[in-house]
């Protein structure tokens, strides 16, 4: 089942650097730890945290989201396994310099499969194919624009 990506970046003051925020839905069928991991991964991909920056402690983030500390610990473990973070006792989670890895052969197949499942889910809610395709084109455009900026 595809997992909704929940991300919001807010700018508290027009001269201040935006403070990254994450948002989860504890009523969703997607496990909370996976929502947290997905949201943090999106921020890491977007470069919201400099390399070497510490993330909030497990207990701090657990208090902020109102979830058990094991939920946050699991999310951090997922991201550490993917190479985004290093977990150090007494230092918490530190952002790593994760250069773009070589994707495995099945990554693209998996992506296409997940996109098909996502569109089927969207159609089941009543959205028209045109709306779905337009939304996907918009996301793709933003993604490509981001790639061109880095280049």
């Amino acid at each position: 089942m595809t997992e909704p990506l929940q991300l919001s970046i807010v700018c508290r003051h027009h001269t201040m650097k935006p403070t990254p925020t994450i948002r989860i839905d504890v009523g969703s069928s997607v496990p909370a730890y996976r929502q947290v991991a997905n949201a943090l991964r999106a921020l890491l991909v977007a470069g919201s945290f400099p390399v070497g920056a510490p993330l909030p402690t497990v207990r701090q983030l657990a208090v902020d989201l109102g979830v058990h500390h094991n939920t946050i610990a699991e999310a951090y473990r997922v991201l550490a396994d993917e190479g985004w973070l290093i977990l150090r006792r007494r230092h918490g989670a530190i952002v790593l310099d994760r250069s773009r890895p070589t994707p495995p052969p099945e990554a693209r197949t998996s992506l296409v499969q997940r996109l098909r499942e996502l569109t089927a889910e969207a159609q089941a809610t009543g959205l028209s194919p045109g709306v779905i395709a337009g939304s996907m084109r918009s996301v793709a455009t933003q993604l490509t624009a981001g790639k061109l900026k880095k280049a």
Partner: protein
Amino acid sequence: MGTMLGFIVLLAVSFHLAPQVTRRDIFFGITVSPAFRDRPVARSISRRYAIEVWTIALAAVAFVAASPMPVPSGPVLLTQTLGACVAFARARHTVRPYAAAPATIREAEIGPRSALPGGILAQLGPFLVLFAAAAYVGLYWEDISARFPTHWNLAGKPDGWTAKSGAGVFRGVVVGFVACAMMLFTSYAVLHWTRLPRVTGTDGAQSRRVRRVNLTAILAAEYLIALLLAWTSVVSMFSDPAGPPRLPLPFRVAPFALVIIGTVAVRVLRRTAAAEGPPVGDTTPDSCWFVGGYLYVNRADPALFVERRTGLGYTLNLGNPLSWLVLIVFAVALSVPPLLGA
């Protein structure tokens, strides 16, 4: 009598404003839809509560005015407080059928916490005041009166005395240190171990400002305690026993003024916010609030302190085992000063 009447009015104003300083989705301690407050039924409940609060205040005023003898302030204000609590509980009971399920969305900022108001120097200020008072008393020990007042009534007249001794002289300063340390710990815990219900948009900015107001009020209370106890040390201990000074009016009024000002400030902040985006709910379910919404017990909530559902400030999450440790430490700390004189 004028002082007593003034305090009755101040107390009534505090209770009148208490339900109005919570977020829009909390009404008399019950989670409701943000638009509920604007409905006629909600306005009717608020109106009835206000009438009951002021009726109780008027009854207290009438009792004090009609009494042929001076009335002790404690029982009158306590009775007024109990009456207001009953009025609140009645209003809460009336709101309960309109309770809404809390939203399941949770938000969190990924970044460092802001500092306590005023920074480290401002936070250490009350302790420096108390230390200076203790040093002054120690330096001029010989000049301290053999007997000096240590307690004043609402009218500012001394009604409790202590003989000169090490424990008697320094008890006030010790009480001040203990109280300020407890409040500093509370401020730190509020900043680091409580949750902002919303962090994005206008509501998020409002939540941060409200927390700032609460932390500033705690700091102001620390300074008030430190200055009061410094005054009792530096002024009253060296006063003429035949004519001890009255407790200055600012010290008697300041606690109530602090609560009123803080309440009004939060009330103004709450009115200027507008909900944006999907609802972001209080993570403290109605079922975990007891005693009319004053006690919070939720083992599943990792927070040590949570926002109160009425009035200003925060309350301990008694479902968190650490909260009991905090209570025990506070109780032990508060029992030290009285034992000094034993």
